[in-house]
């Protein structure tokens, strides 16, 4: 799969994260100055030049777990704190939003326009002459340098790589359910018809040629209503991207949309082989990210809630706990407290406990790395 996919995945997920945080910071009436600091700090970390340069080197995608850890760290790069339930929800919203954009992109090359929409929005939230503005401009340079000259085929491979990252993720998101672009099983509605990809023709015609190369046309019923794209989106540093995908969907007129979401996870697990694959590059990058964020301890911390109120958040935490419990297979309970009968049994139980802690230790590898 394409080794040029990671920067696009990271930048677009990061862009969605900023949209959501911006909306929640306002909804929770966090002081303007604090909000601005949070967004500024996160964008500055995300677009740190060294980190961006590393990211743009050809490499496979991170595993889902490593990608999630990166955004856990990023979200906490400033004075804002999220609890586990809010962080889960934030990440679900980000990933489903970008999955939607990649799924609905008219042609694979539009993924670059979607990326520009995200970076455009981040640039407009920075100030002229600020160091962060320079970092954002560096990202434009890297994007143009890496992607502007790619063929349709290379973009097609990038799209396929992104779609494989999002495969089997079917989390329901309220804003999509309300807009009727997602159904209750978490699938996006793919409606036939509408605008065609730029540079293509309306289906419904057969051009037949004879020996002399002369053609006659026969039409057939195409089953939907299409309209041709009138212009191509701009791939310049600024310009009309034409597509709306990748722009901020949490506008002021629909303020509560991130908070009323019942993000139901359809638990499809065990199919992801990539979770277990070693991820040395991702670890190295996480290391770098950890250094960049550094010991960002301040006394000014505040907590952000991705739900309408604290009670909902608490409920979400308990529900996810219950889900985990419910997911456990039925077990035969053995009372191990009466250990006097057999010393052999005690020994075995002792070994079993030890094993379990070792497994847990493995799981936390990446997180340990971040703390070191």
């Amino acid at each position: 799969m394409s080794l040029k996919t990671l920067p696009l995945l990271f930048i677009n997920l990061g862009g969605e994260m900023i949209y959501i945080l911006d909306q929640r910071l306002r909804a929770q009436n966090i002081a303007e100055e604090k909000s601005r600091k949070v967004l500024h700090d996160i964008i500055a970390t995300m677009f740190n030049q060294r980190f961006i340069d590393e990211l743009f080197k050809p490499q496979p995608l991170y595993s889902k777990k490593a990608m999630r850890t990166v955004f856990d760290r990023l979200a906490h790069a400033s004075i804002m704190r999220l609890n586990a339930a809010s962080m889960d929800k934030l990440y679900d919203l980000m990933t489903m939003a970008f999955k939607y954009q990649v799924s609905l992109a008219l042609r694979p090359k539009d993924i670059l326009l979607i990326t520009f929409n995200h970076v455009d929005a981040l640039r407009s939230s920075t100030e002229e002459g600020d160091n962060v503005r320079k970092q954002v401009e560096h990202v434009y340079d890297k994007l143009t340098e890496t992607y502007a000259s790619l063929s349709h085929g290379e973009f097609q491979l990038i799209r396929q790589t992104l779609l494989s990252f999002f495969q089997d993720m079917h989390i329901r998101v309220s804003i999509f359910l309300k807009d009727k672009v997602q159904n209750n099983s978490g699938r996006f509605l793919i409606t036939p018809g509408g605008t065609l990809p730029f540079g293509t023709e309306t289906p419904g015609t057969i051009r037949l040629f004879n020996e002399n190369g002369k053609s006659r046309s026969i039409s057939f019923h195409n089953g939907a209503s299409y309209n041709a794209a009138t212009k191509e989106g701009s791939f310049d540093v600024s310009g009309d991207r034409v597509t709306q995908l990748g722009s901020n969907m949490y506008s002021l007129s629909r303020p509560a949309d991130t908070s009323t979401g019942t993000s139901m996870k359809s638990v499809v697990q065990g199919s992801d082989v990539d979770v277990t694959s070693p991820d040395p590059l991702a670890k190295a990058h996480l290391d770098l990210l950890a250094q960049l964020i550094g010991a960002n301890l301040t006394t000014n911390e505040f907590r952000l809630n991705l739900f309408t109120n604290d009670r909902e958040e608490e409920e979400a935490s308990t529900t996810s706990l219950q889900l985990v419990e419910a997911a456990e297979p039925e077990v035969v309970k053995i009372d191990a407290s009466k250990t006097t009968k057999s010393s052999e049994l005690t020994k075995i139980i002792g070994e079993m406990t030890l094993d379990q802690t070792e497994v847990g230790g493995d799981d936390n590898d990446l997180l340990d790395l971040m703390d070191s």
Partner: protein
Amino acid sequence: MYRQDVPITMKGTASSLCNNLSVHAVPDKRQINYAVVHKSLVNLISATTDGSSVVGRQILCKEPAATQGVPFVMQVKWVILPTRSLLVLTTGRGIQIFEPDGAAMVYFHSLSDSLDKSNYAKGVAGVGEKTLCVGTETGAILMFDVPAKGNNITLLDTVCKHQAPVSDLTSEKDVLASADDLGTIIMWTFNGIKLSPVTSIRGTGWPCNSLALWKSVVIAGFASGHLRVYNANSGICGAEVLAHARTINAVDVSRDNGMVLSVSDDTFFRVWHLKALNVPQIEFCHGETVKNSQLVGGRFVDGQGRALCVTGYDSSEITFFVRV
């Protein structure tokens, strides 16, 4: 004209890849096999022709020399040579050849062992009596000699004529058709030792994702949604169809009567009828949408195009349609 039939449910969902469905009928055993890629796995399903038994399993794509994780599978396809049948998996780093039931790997060919340089394989076809051809990202076509038995598969030759990554291969006896990411199609003849180019059809820049060959007519599906048919000897285009509103991910032709199937990201599958004249012609037969499904694979189940099956991205169902 076609009615939907009972689907087959796979263990894993279909990845978004071109030609992501291969069908292999074994009439002696009254059995039809299906193969669909799920990330680093291949879903294999064996069904009896009467549908009374459906058995599914998965092949995990491990690479003998790979130290860095599991590679993604790019394509899975059965190749039926006169002397032997094989199941071929192409990945981001190499080619894996299995016995047709997928139980044992008989050969592995590495294309890249570096993490930051990819050289994937894509496009698989058999040509002549016992030669297997596989395309690569560098535009090369590798030719392997396949013995009737055993694992002594050897690399015969490498031909490099494509300027872009090879996207698909198909064949008919001694004729091979190859396509690439810029839409260029090259026709070859095979004399038992060497492939020689016959004609080249220049692309427009949109990838040619899928090829089919029938009675010296090439059927090509493009990422622009166009379906084009050419005379395989002269390269003359007989028909250009504005067939789909998004990329065409797979085309197929029925062996006995020249029915053509095309499937697309636009959720439609369409059935066409091909006339293998000197300047080949095509007409529209049927079209249908599979709800909310970006179709990535499509194959006729039988030689007359009476039944067909399709797969869609992120769906674990193989959907069937039967002509009525």
